Every structure is written in C-alpha cells, then in structure tokens.
C-alpha cells in the first residue's frame, strides 16, 4: 500500500517535471512577475519607511507594484530584449511609475497595436479628433533593454497600477 502510494507520487512528480521542462526548455530568458503593495510607516523622526508585501488587502484604490525580473539562464548573451506587459484588467496605470534600468519605456493606449513615448500616444476623443492619451488610459507597457544581458545576469522592470 505504502509502496503503491510512493510510486504514484513519484510518477506524478515525474509527469509534472516533464511538463514544466517541456514548457520551459526553450526559454533562455526566465521572466518572473510579482505583485506587491507598499506599506508606508512614518517614524518618530518623520522618516518614511517603505515595506513591500504581497497584495494581501487589495481594495479599490490600492496601488499595486508589478515587477518583472528577467534572467538570462542560457549559455550565450541575449540581445534585443523587449518586455511587454499589458496593464492588468480592472486596474489603471499610475502616471510616471514605469521603471527599468537601461531600458527605453514606451506605452500603448490601443491594446498594444501602436507604441510610443507618452507625448506621442494618441486616442480618438469623443469629438472624433485625436488627443494625447492620459496615463490611466494606457493598455500596455514595453521596456526595450539597451545592450546585452550576459548569461547568469538578471535585471528587472516595474510599474505601478491602481485597482479601479
């Protein structure tokens, strides 16, 4: 009985690892997304301390920090790295919150069809004329990494979105 259970567990683990291998095998860049909220405490000296935690209490109005960590797990240097992140549904992008070292950050307000710098992103207004899109209307963010990422190296990009 115990052996049978052990065998079953082993088989299951084998199957699972096989599955993940099949999905991950081709990826020389591993990208991990995390969501966090920032808890600010003000000390007696007036200094603010920022502590990040998983989004435990996430009510409308809560600002969530989305971070993508990308790591070169391959054997060669990676180039032309472009990270695309749709703004999660039911949230809106917080203006000026996109960060990323050594990246050019562009945005889209039309579901990722066209991307550009903030002042170049246009949307059709109710009067039919094109107008500059507001940050809370962005639908996608793109980070274009400048240069190469050597094997074993990682970097990260992030943005903040507010729950609608």
């Amino acid at each position: 009985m115990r052996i049978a259970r052990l065998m079953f567990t082993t088989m299951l683990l084998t199957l699972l690892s096989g599955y993940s291998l099949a999905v991950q095998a081709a990826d020389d860049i591993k990208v991990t997304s995390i969501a966090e909220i920032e808890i600010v405490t003000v000390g007696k000296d007036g200094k603010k301390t920022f502590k990040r935690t998983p989004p435990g209490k996430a009510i409308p109005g809560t600002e969530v920090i989305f971070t993508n960590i990308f790591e070169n797990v391959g054997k060669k240097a990676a180039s032309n790295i472009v990270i695309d992140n749709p703004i999660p549904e039911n949230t809106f992008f917080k203006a000026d919150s996109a960060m990323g070292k050594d990246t050019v950050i562009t945005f889209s307000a039309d579901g990722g069809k066209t991307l550009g710098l903030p002042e170049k992103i246009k949307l059709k207004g109710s009067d039919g004329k094109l107008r500059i899109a507001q940050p809370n209307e962005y639908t996608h963010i793109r980070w274009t990494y400048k240069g190469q990422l050597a094997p074993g190296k990682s970097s990260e990009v992030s943005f903040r979105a507010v729950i609608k």
Partner: protein
Amino acid sequence: MDLRTRLLGVCVCLWLLSPQSSWAAGVLSGTPIFGSASVNYVMGASPVATATSNTISFVVDEKVNLTVVGGNITNVISGATLQVATFTVTNNSNSPLDFSLAINSTIAADAFDPTACNAYVENGVTAGFQSGQDTATFIDELAVDTTKTVYAVCNIPLGQANTNTGQVGLVATAQGNFTGVTGAGALHAYVPTPGTLGAALTPTSGVESQPNVDIVFVDIQGSETALDTVRDAKHSARDTYSVGPALVLTKSVSVVDPKGTAVVMPGAVMTYTINATLTGTSAVNNLTIADPLPANITYVPGSIQVACGSGTYANGVCGTGVITSPQSAAAKTDTNMDADFADFTANTVSVSLGNVAAPANVVITFRATIN
C-alpha cells in the same frame, strides 16, 4: 401689521438623490486581477524567441464604506407628532450590502430632544414619507453606488418656543452575509439575503490567503461621535427640527403722487404689497392675513388683488402650493378675482387663504390714498 396665522399641520418634503455614475465604489469584491509579461529576445544568432512569465493572480477585497447625509431642517410646531427628518444613505462599498439604522435623539447641543423616534426607508412608490408605505426599518440589498432616502420620524415635545431647535442623528451600519467566515475555501463572496438584515461585519484581521476576500473597513467618522468612529462600518449625520412658523410675510409700499412722482403728499396713492411665502416642508391651515390701515389714509374700494408670486393662481393652486380659499359666511364688503375671500371691514384689509400647502407664494396688493 397684525398677522394671525395658525399652523395646524405640517407636511413633508422629499429629498431623493438619483444614483451616482456606476462603479464609483470600484471593482466588485472577488474580482480576480491577473498580470503577466512576455519577453522577446535574441540569443546569439538564433531567431527571436519569446518567454512568458508566470501569471500573477489575486482577488479584489471587500471595501466597506458608506455615506450618510443629513443637514436638512424640518420646520415644526411644538407638540407635533410624527415629524419627518430626511437623510440619505449611500453604499460606497464594492458589493451590495444591507444597512441597519439607528437614531440618536439625545444630542446635548440643542434646545430639546425629539422623542419616540423611528427610522424608516423610502420604498420608492410615493415621494415623501408615507406611514403606510415606508415601513422598512433597515435598507435591504443596497446596490453598489446607490442611495436610499431614510426618514427619522419623531415627536416634538410641548412647550418649545419659536426658533428652538432639536437635532436628530442617524447612524447607518453596513451589514451583510459572506460565504464562510475564515479558513481555506472561504471565498467571502457576498450572499444576498432579501428581506432579512445581514449579519454584522467583522474586518479581516491579518490577511486571508488567496483567493479569499478580506473585509476591509474604510469609512470615516460621522456626526454621532459617541456611536460612530472611523473604520467601523458606520457613518452618521444630523438633521434639525426647527420650531416656529414657516410662513414669512413681507410688506412694501410704493407711492405715486398726483404729479406722477413718489412724494408722500395728500392725494398720493399708496400701493401696499404683502408677500406671503410658505417655505420648506410645512402647511398652514385657516390662514388669514389682515392689515389694519393707519389713520389718515383711505382705502380704495375694489383694489384688493390676490395673485401668485410666481405662476398663475387658478383652481386653488399657486405655483406648486395648494390654497383652499374657503368662502367666509359673512358678506364681504369688497370683492376681487372670483370668490369673496377678501374683505375690508373696520378699516382692516383681510384675506382668507384657507389651508395653504408649501411651497406657496401669495402676493396681496391693495391701494389707499393719503388724506
């Protein structure tokens, strides 16, 4: 000017707020938020490859928030019963909820405490408090971002002088049933309980594991600070009962002398205008406005006119107010418009308007010459 007014009845005005634009309260609790990123890259001389991140998933938690609005003034008379003060309660939470209602009538900073108070919810059939219709004592299943009218119905103690005020506070508490209370699998989805007041809410201590919904109170403190604090699923506001007549009379005189200028001199014609405005929520019954003329002036026969301050006075309706204008049994010495509810006797102009329901604005004019 001698005024005889008797206030025998008071009616109620209505304060219905239309619902605000939808989803001001935010995404409904329990809604999942998903996040993921993808990366395109080139490895050496290989073609462009794509990698996809894990998918972030968490649910939107329950934000409990509500707004009670008062600040209304109800004009009352001393000793009146079942006087209505009007409030609104808005559900600013991101799920439907029930709201229990409590009244604070023992507020220290006023001249009197209203008595025998009850709170009732407007049922939406007939505007204004209807004792036979508006019988619900809690708000049942108030949708997100919607507002209900709530009435505090109180008695006014006897012996209150004019201008005395008494305040009444309304405290609303968000309540509701959620699936499960704690532990794994407790999604905390809102469970409607039509016809039944939901359970008192408890904010989640700590953080529920995903995908459970935490219950978070975010309400501010209202007027009833002894009963309502911040983040307690309660909010409150106050209304005021004000004792005194709701009828305001103003009188003005214009003079035209025989030369056509406005010099007060013998032979000049004075036009008196009495403006009677019944405001707010009250009705007055058997209203007679009388103005004894001073010495040395002579009433111009047939000069009494009764009109509306705005709108047309016809069939007893002046603006939106109703005037019954009963005819007096006594013969009138002066007539106007139609029936003889105007009178000039004993050197006094008097007009019987009968029962007048607010809001009404009646203008009485008559002329007299200077001897």
